[in-house]
């Protein structure tokens, strides 16, 4: 299968061939800047702990240039790494200020890069080892047939088995299905929703019997937070889920659940 070639690719074929020979790699194969760096280090037979930043930086930048020539989108992650490499390189060119040395506690970016490369190499290999295992459904198979006996039997009292992601994903799928106006308060954006705030309060009340208004806003005492928290309390009060008290004239506002936590003795829906 052939990837759709940009119209002007033909002109760059000689350049491309040269680079392909030089690196003998497939351009779409790199899983990010760390992968590319690791490849360049191996290609140059360098020791990760003792890389020549000048050589690696030059080759890395050439590679990015090539990606641009080929009209491959160069992701921001690749550019961030390019900046890091250039920073390390320029640092090495500067004479070391001896006066600064005793207090130079900051992390050496080169050391940091080496540490990341070593860690990355480990996980990349771990991924390959995991991927090479005999996999269920690929090399190894379990039984799939159901016995007639079992098809008839019902499970009635078993425990529940469900993941958090399934729950969120069900909600997300539902939102995609229904018209947006039904969900006025879930619109994306950074504003604090009253529903979230109500949830927070309800969850606090599951743990403790009384909650103080100040505790709710102390983490984030912004104007928005205070207003939304107050509206949420009013709503909960309106729903008769909580009762509010105030200590003295300008004392703290306290509230307690109006219904004890372990109620339900109610008519079925």
């Amino acid at each position, binding site marked *: 299968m052939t990837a759709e070639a940009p119209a002007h690719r033909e002109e760059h074929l000689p350049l491309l061939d040269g680079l392909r020979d030089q690196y003998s790699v497939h351009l779409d194969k790199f899983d990010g800047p760390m992968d590319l760096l690791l490849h360049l280090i191996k290609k140059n037979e360098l020791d990760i702990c003792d890389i020549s930043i000048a050589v690696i930086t030059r080759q890395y930048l050439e590679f990015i240039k090539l990606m641009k020539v080929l009209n491959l989108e160069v992701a921001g992650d690749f550019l961030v790494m390019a900046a890091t490499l250039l920073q390390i390189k320029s640092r090495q060119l500067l004479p070391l200020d001896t006066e600064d040395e005793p207090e130079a506690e900051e992390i050496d970016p080169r050391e940091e890069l080496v540490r990341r490369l070593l860690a990355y190499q480990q996980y990349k290999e771990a991924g390959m080892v995991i991927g090479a295992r005999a996999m269920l459904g690929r090399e190894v198979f379990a039984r799939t047939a159901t016995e007639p006996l079992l098809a008839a039997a019902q499970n009635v009292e*078993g425990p529940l088995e469900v993941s958090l992601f399934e729950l969120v*994903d069900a909600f997300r799928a539902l939102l995609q299905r229904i018209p947006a106006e039904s969900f006025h308060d879930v619109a994306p954006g950074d504003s604090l929703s009253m529903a979230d705030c109500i949830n927070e309060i309800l969850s606090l009340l599951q743990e403790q019997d009384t909650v103080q208004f100040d505790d709710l806003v102390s983490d984030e005492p912004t104007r928005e937070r205070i207003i939304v928290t107050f509206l949420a309390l009013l709503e909960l009060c309106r*729903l008769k889920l909580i009762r509010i008290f105030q200590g003295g004239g300008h004392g703290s506002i306290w509230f307690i659940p109006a219904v004890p936590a372990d109620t339900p003795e109610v008519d079925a829906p």
Partner: protein
Amino acid sequence: MNPELSAILESLIFTAESALSTDRLCELLDEFDRDEIKSALSELVDYHQGRGGGFDLVEVAGGWQFRTRPVFHRFITRHIKTRAFKFSQSALETLAIIAYRQPVTRAEVEHLRGVDCGGVLKTLLEKHLVRILGKKDIPGRPLIYGTSKEFLEIFGLKDLKSLPTLREIQALDEQPSYERQEELQLEPEKSLPVESQLSL
């Protein structure tokens, strides 16, 4: 008896979704003789009967299948009746609405889902995932629902604040186009007959 052939036959019959006929087995294993296959099968029947394990190789409806011995069915039904309960999509959706929109009435849940939720709601109440928080102060005084302590326990949440928000899940979709390219499957694996390739 060819021990390798016996093991191959076992693996094929074991993984098949329904009984495999002798004809089908011969067709699948064309490097072996039909007579060889037939005698291996009858030897396998004797072998499993003789070893007295939990299942036998039996010929049913013109095919071969491993079946548990009826004498053990009472143990198997113990498991079936009490095995883990898998959520239906409607139960999951209803639970999700209650979790994210609590306090909420049945009418509000039904408005969002567009279908009656009485049955699902009852199941959720019975499983103690959902609880009645009280009654809403509007005409008809409908019940209002919220999630329970058990809900938090099942999902391993410390509190309702720990529920991932939609925004957090949606944020996973925001990725540079470079990553998306990586996920394209450019060349299907030819060596395997692949039905549903799920490329990751």
